[in-house]
Each structure stands twice: as structure tokens, then as C-alpha cells.
């Protein structure tokens, strides 16, 4: 094509098609600016937190730290790790997820596919109420529940998992509900018209269509509870050695570990004792915090991969 200097064609029409109303252009630019500004403002704390945690935590963050517990570690010893806390966090979070996802997902299915009338309204109301429960109250509830069954002073992983479930269930219900409502009714009708019973329609069409969104919702719910501290402090307690058993004895968890190390503060070293590191507790707290952040990021990544794998593909 040859570049023409004169604008060709009907000039009247050209003017009409170019008439970008000035206001729209200006608004577009202003809004763009605002959005970028908001983005930067939102990123600042995130970057600042990540930076602080990385800078402070990277020093202690190594294979030794990840594979050793705190058993027999005292004072300013250059030793100790978070293996027991990682085990605890992973097990308790997994247990909480196993409790919450079936309950939450089934509740969401009930609300979207079957729920009519006052029962559905009541369920919705109580889910909303549950969303507002302070996490310490959830911890007390779980403790009280197990104290009734097993006597006072009970501390074990499963109690913490129940406490976390109380926090997680409403989040799962809410996000799954939203995702199920996004499935167009035409798809349900199309399947029903093929003579498929309702429950199979729900499982094979509705859930299958919305599985990617549900996966994202569950990942977010896990990220929401994995950093909970207060309820675990009450229900699971603290311990320095490794405990794999959810159903017996105390366990350590990462957030509680961070809290505990931090609250122990500076070590009063005897002057001249070179093996004693005064800031060891703080260092361990930062490194554990870094680990927790990495675990959450890893979970998000896995969630994303799952989502991508299940997302409806453009077949052919």
C-alpha cells in the first residue's frame, strides 16, 4: 500500500467516525492513572512485607532449619528448626480442608440447586454469621467441644483442625455458591432434557463446569486459615519435638512457632560466649514466617495449575 498524505474518503463520515468525545478520552486517561496509582498503593505494603521477611528470614532459611525440630535446643544455641511446625501446619490444614470442603461444598450445592424457602434462608443467614466469628472464639468453641467429650485440658491436632474448619466452612460455602450460580441454567436444562437425574446433572455438569472456580475458592480458603495463630495456640498448644499424630498430644504449627520464638525475645548471652547468638529467636521467627509465606505461595501455584488443568478447554 502507498502511504497517502491526504485523508481519503468522505470527510463528513471520517469526522463522524473519529468523533471521540473528548470527555471519554479524558476520563479514560484519568481512570487509568487512578488504577495505576491504586495498584502501586496496593503493592507497596506487599512488597515491603515480602522484602522485610526475605531480608530477615533468608539467613536462617536452609536445609538444616527445614529438617530439624527444636528438641533439646535452648538458650542462644545455633541450632533448631521448624520441621515439627511444618508437619503440624500441613497436617492440621489438610485435616481442616478435609472437614470443610465436603461440608462447605455440599452446603453450597444445597443452597444453589435444592434450597428453597425458610431452611435455605436460615442456612444462608448462619453462614453469614459464621463468617464473622473471631478466630479466637472458633478456637474456644473447638476446645470446649472436645473438653466435653474428652475432659478438660485436651490438646491435640484434630481439635485445631476443627477450630480452623469453623473458620473455613463459611468461606468455602460462599465461594462455591458464587461459582455454582455462574453455571448457566441452560446447561442444567440441557442435561435434564436428556433424561439425566438431578443429582447426576449436579455432579457431572454443574460441578464439572464450575470446578476450576471452586478450586480457586478452596485455595483461597486454605490461604485464609493457614496463618491462623490464636485458635491453634488454644487447641493445639506448643511443643518442641516432632508429633505426627493428629489425635494425640500437642503439635507445633508455623504461626504459633513464629509467635513463640518472637515472644521469647533476646537471649541473655554470657559475654564472651561465641556460640551464643542473642537474636536467635528473632531470626528463627523470621525464617519460619518466610517458610509460611512460601508454603502459601506454593499452594496458590498448585491451585492455579489445577484450575488450568480443569478449565473448560476449547476443544478441537
Amino acid at each position, binding site marked *: 500500500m502507498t502511504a497517502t498524505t491526504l485523508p*481519503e474518503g*468522505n470527510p463528513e*463520515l471520517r469526522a*463522524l*467516525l*473519529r*468523533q*471521540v468525545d473528548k470527555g471519554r478520552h479524558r476520563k479514560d486517561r484519568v481512570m487509568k492513572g487512578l488504577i495505576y496509582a491504586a495498584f502501586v498503593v496496593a503493592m507497596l505494603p506487599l512488597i515491603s512485607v515480602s522484602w522485610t521477611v526475605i531480608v530477615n528470614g533468608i539467613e536462617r532459611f536452609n536445609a538444616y532449619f527445614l529438617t530439624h525440630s527444636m528438641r533439646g535446643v535452648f538458650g542462644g544455641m545455633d541450632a533448631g528448626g521448624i520441621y515439627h511446625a511444618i508437619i503440624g501446619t500441613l497436617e492440621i490444614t489438610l485435616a481442616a480442608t478435609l472437614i470443610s470442603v465436603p461440608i462447605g461444598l455440599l452446603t453450597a450445592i444445597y443452597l444453589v440447586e435444592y434450597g428453597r424457602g425458610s431452611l435455605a434462608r436460615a442456612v444462608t443467614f448462619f453462614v453469614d454469621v459464621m463468617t464473622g466469628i473471631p478466630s479466637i472464639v472458633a478456637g474456644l468453641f473447638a476446645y470446649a467441644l472436645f473438653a466435653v467429650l474428652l475432659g478438660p485440658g485436651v490438646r491435640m491436632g484434630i481439635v485445631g483442625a476443627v477450630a480452623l474448619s469453623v473458620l473455613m466452612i463459611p468461606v468455602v460455602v460462599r465461594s462455591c455458591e458464587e461459582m455454582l450460580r455462574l453455571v448457566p441454567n441452560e446447561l442444567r436444562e440441557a442435561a435434564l432434557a436428556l433424561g439425566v437425574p438431578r443429582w447426576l446433572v449436579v455432579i457431572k455438569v454443574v460441578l464439572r463446569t464450575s470446578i476450576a472456580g471452586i478450586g480457586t475458592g478452596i485455595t483461597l480458603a486454605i490461604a485464609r486459615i493457614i496463618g491462623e495463630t490464636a485458635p491453634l495456640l488454644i487447641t493445639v498448644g506448643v511443643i518442641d519435638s516432632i508429633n505426627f499424630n493428629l489425635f494425640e498430644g500437642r503439635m507445633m504449627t508455623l504461626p504459633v512457632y513464629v509467635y513463640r520464638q518472637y515472644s521469647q525475645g533476646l537471649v541473655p548471652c554470657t559475654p564472651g560466649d561465641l556460640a551464643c547468638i542473642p537474636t536467635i529467636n528473632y531470626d528463627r521467627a523470621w525464617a519460619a514466617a518466610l517458610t509460611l509465606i512460601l508454603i502459601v505461595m506454593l499452594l496458590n501455584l498448585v491451585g492455579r495449575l489445577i484450575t488450568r488443568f480443569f478449565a473448560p478447554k476449547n476443544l478441537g
Partner: protein
Amino acid sequence: MAQRIDVKDLNIFYGDFRAVADVEMAVEPRSVTAFIGPSGCGKSTFLRTLNRMHEVIPGAHVQGSVAMDGVDLYGSDIDPVAVRRQVGMVFQRPNPFPTMSIAENVLAGIKLNNKRISKGDAQDVVEASLRGANLWNEVKDRLNRPGSGLSGGQQQRLCIARAIAVKPQVLLMDEPCSALDPISTLAIEDLIAELKSDYTIVIVTHNMQQAARVSDRTAFFNLAATGEPGRLVEIDDTATIFSSPRVQATEDYISGRFG
């Protein structure tokens, strides 16, 4: 005023996939041009490039030029929003806005743009557009009822009224009758015949009789094989296409002897 459209060397893509290749055609003003061809040959895709609706699909883009009265719609200084105000569109399935009444649906192009319009003017626009769409007599007593309460054919005419209420120069219709009964279809065909005195109309249809009845010129698109891009086989006066097409494939398709 109705405008002519000249398409040159147009290639249309979805991401890397070239859906339509090398289209070259002229759409005459104040006439009806029909697009026919087997499913998947790119009629809808091509139609949507005429009002820059193609590019709203992520990854979709075009190469080549579409000139309206000499102005390239894909020129760098052209505002796609302004293009869509001049080139209206009616979709395959009637899609009145469910939250709006019949009158509000007709005024949607004005109201959704936050434009102010006096009550009197609004009434005039509603009446003129609904009359233009041959719907006025059927709905004049229930203008404030929801548009979704109408029959399919009425809804489609409501969508046409909505499209012409913003006074476009060109009207694109993508199989506007495929979801309608024969009586509604006739009503819409009559409407197209009336509208062509004011508008340039392009209509996609799978119905040969409809193409023969309503259009002045007919374009036949075809697909060599799946995965290949669709191409314009020929465009000519409708009478010529249906009596003595130049290309054998056109004759095969029209007479139903198609693979």
C-alpha cells in the same frame, strides 16, 4: 445516510488461527447483501469485522481494510465505539435487556450511553423505531412491560428497533430469523425490504429462499477443509447467483448437492 462498504485483502484471525482469508468485496448502499455458506465458513466472523465487534474477542484481530465510503474503519484515528454507532447489529438470538421495559430497550443505545433526552423526544424515538420495526401496533399498549415478555419474533423486531433507534448507516444481521417461526420470519423479511430504502443491510442466512427473497446481492463463502480458512467464493447479483453462478461449488451448495 446509507454508505457503501469496500473490503480489501481482509484476513481475520482468532489468535494464530486464520478463520477467514483474503476477502475482497463491495457492499452497495441502500441494498441488501446476503451471506450464504456452510456453517463454520466464517460468515459471522466476517460480519463482525464490519463494525469492529470482532476485536472484542480476546486475541482476535484482522489484517486488511474495510472502508466505509472511503474511510478505513481500521484506520489508526478511527474510534471503534463511533464505528459501532454507525454500523448497527442484530444478533442470531433475540437479546432484549431483561431488566428493561420495551420502551427502555428501544432507548438502550441512548440511555446506556448516559445521554440525556427529553421525554417528548424519547417518545418520538420509541414510536418511530417501533414503527420502523413493524412492532408499534403490537406493543403500543404495553411499552412499560418487560421486553422479555414478548414472543421470539417480537423480541427480534424489538432488537431491530433498538438497533435503528441510534440511526446507524449500516445494519448487520446474523441469522436474524433462525430462531423464529415462519410468520415472524416473514414479518422480518418485509421489514428488511422496507429498511433497505434507508439503510445498507448485510444479512447472514442459512435459508436459500430467504436470501433469494430479500437480497439484491448474494455472497457465497466456503471452506476448503476443516482447519483451512473460509474464503469468499463469489459475490454477484442474487438473481445471477441463483440462476447461473460462475463457480460450480456455489451451484452445488444452492441446489443442495453439497458434501
